[in-house]
């Protein structure tokens, strides 16, 4: 499990999500799944923004000063962010309609060319990791 998580985190912190979408399409992941993923990815930032704003507004009015208060504030935070994102979602549909939506997303065709330097660096890193794993495979820490 740790290996899987490390691989995922490695991918997440090194590769822009938008490039991953491109690769995913090349791998033949169905368009509807990808379109959904892209809209969800965009929505994450909108919801996060709203979450931070509401949370700050609550903090400013001492929303988290005691344990009971924190519970109450958290529940209203969840509620208002839910309603907010619902409205944002409706607006999104409206915005797509206003631009003649037929539910299709375009993908930029041009992919940045693969350069030797990064490829070497990544393979070197992976090799070192593999060697480390092989050497320390028998070591038990706990």
């Amino acid at each position, binding site marked *: 499990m740790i290996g899987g998580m490390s691989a995922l985190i490695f991918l997440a912190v090194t590769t822009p999500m938008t490039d991953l*979408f491109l690769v995913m399409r090349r791998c033949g992941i169905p368009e509807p799944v990808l379109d959904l993923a892209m809209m969800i990815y965009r929505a994450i*930032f909108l919801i996060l*923004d709203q979450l931070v704003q509401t949370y700050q507004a609550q903090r400013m009015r001492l929303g988290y000063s005691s344990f009971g208060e924190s519970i109450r504030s958290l529940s209203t935070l969840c509620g208002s962010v839910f309603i907010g994102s619902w409205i944002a979602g409706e607006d999104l549909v409206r*915005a797509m*309609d206003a631009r*003649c939506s037929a539910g299709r997303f375009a993908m930029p065709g041009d992919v940045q060319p693969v350069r030797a330097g990064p490829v070497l660096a990544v393979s070197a890193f992976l090799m070192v990791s593999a060697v480390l794993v092989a050497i320390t495979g028998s070591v038990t820490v706990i």
Partner: protein
Amino acid sequence: MGSIILEARDVRYRYPRGMEAIRGISFHVRRGEKVALVGPNGAGKSTLLLMFNGMIRPDSGMLLFDNEPLAYDRDSLRRLRRRVGFVFQNPDRQIIAPTVWQDVAFGPTNLGLSEEQVRAAVEAALGAVGLAGFGRRPPHQLSSGEKKRVAMAGVLAMDPDLLVLDEPTNNLDPAGSEDIMELLDELGEKGKTIFISTHDVELAYPWADRVILLRAGEILQEDSPEVAFGDPDLVRRARLSVPALLELHRELERRGLSSPGRRPRTVLDLVRSVEQATRGGGARPPCGAIHVCNVDVTGREALARWLSAHDGISIGAMGTRAKQRAAGDGLPLDFSYGVIDKCILKALNGRSSLILTVGGMVAQVEQRVARFREESGAAIEVRRVEGA
């Protein structure tokens, strides 16, 4: 004046379980016009705008686009929305894709254009709003002004005839607002019809060809800006304010310091009016010259050489491309909005200035200054800065 592109006939609309938002509105917009719908918050501006591309269907009355009544079936709406581009107030609610390129490509892709055409449309639209090279950026990393431009590019990529913008300068700083207004001017020059809603009187006043004052779902007044904003009583009833320029002119006029008659639209108009009243056509100091440079044909070194020979000259840039070039060359801009007017003002004061611009706008500068020369008799010379 062009043919009528959009018309409303006694349009009414009531929100479900709400009050009547639009109470019998009729007006028309002609091709190539720049119209500002001005009214206080809650006057029904957004509701009315959403009717133009069929997002809201009026309860009674009729809307016509290109003299055809709007139809509300799926196909007609798609055809209509291709020609009526709508820019929402909040760009965050309009930008739907994870990258700028994908968002701008959304409209053209859904219109069924080929990949080549989509790419060309996106390049052109991003270039037009001054965001060339921003394609791979995710929208949440952009500033408000840049997001607004992305939203506009997304609409421009579909090449609409009528551009509808709901509060285009809301949430923007003054410089950002001026950039957007200049962009709208540029699009107007290219023949697009532009309809904006705003409550920023100072912004609408010099920009619009025609102003529609809206209050509580009804049209209070529909006229040229100097007339519509000129009636203090009307402006107060619309919960707006008289533009500072008009108020100043009225006070100066009462004191005999400004010539009566035509109301000024710009600072230049007012200055001339004051000069006429106070100087009485007497001798004026020699005018400065306005230099125009087409940055597409003038190289960086040539421009730098010219500038070093004219040390301390004021520089203005007209158009998105010229501004980018100025930024790229590290030239400090003195003016970026209403550039010709400001340069004429400088020239009247005996100072010279340089306007950076591109292609067809060189002729536009010459025509505008020539017109001013005829009207005022001030001998302002326009000189082209040549490439070599």
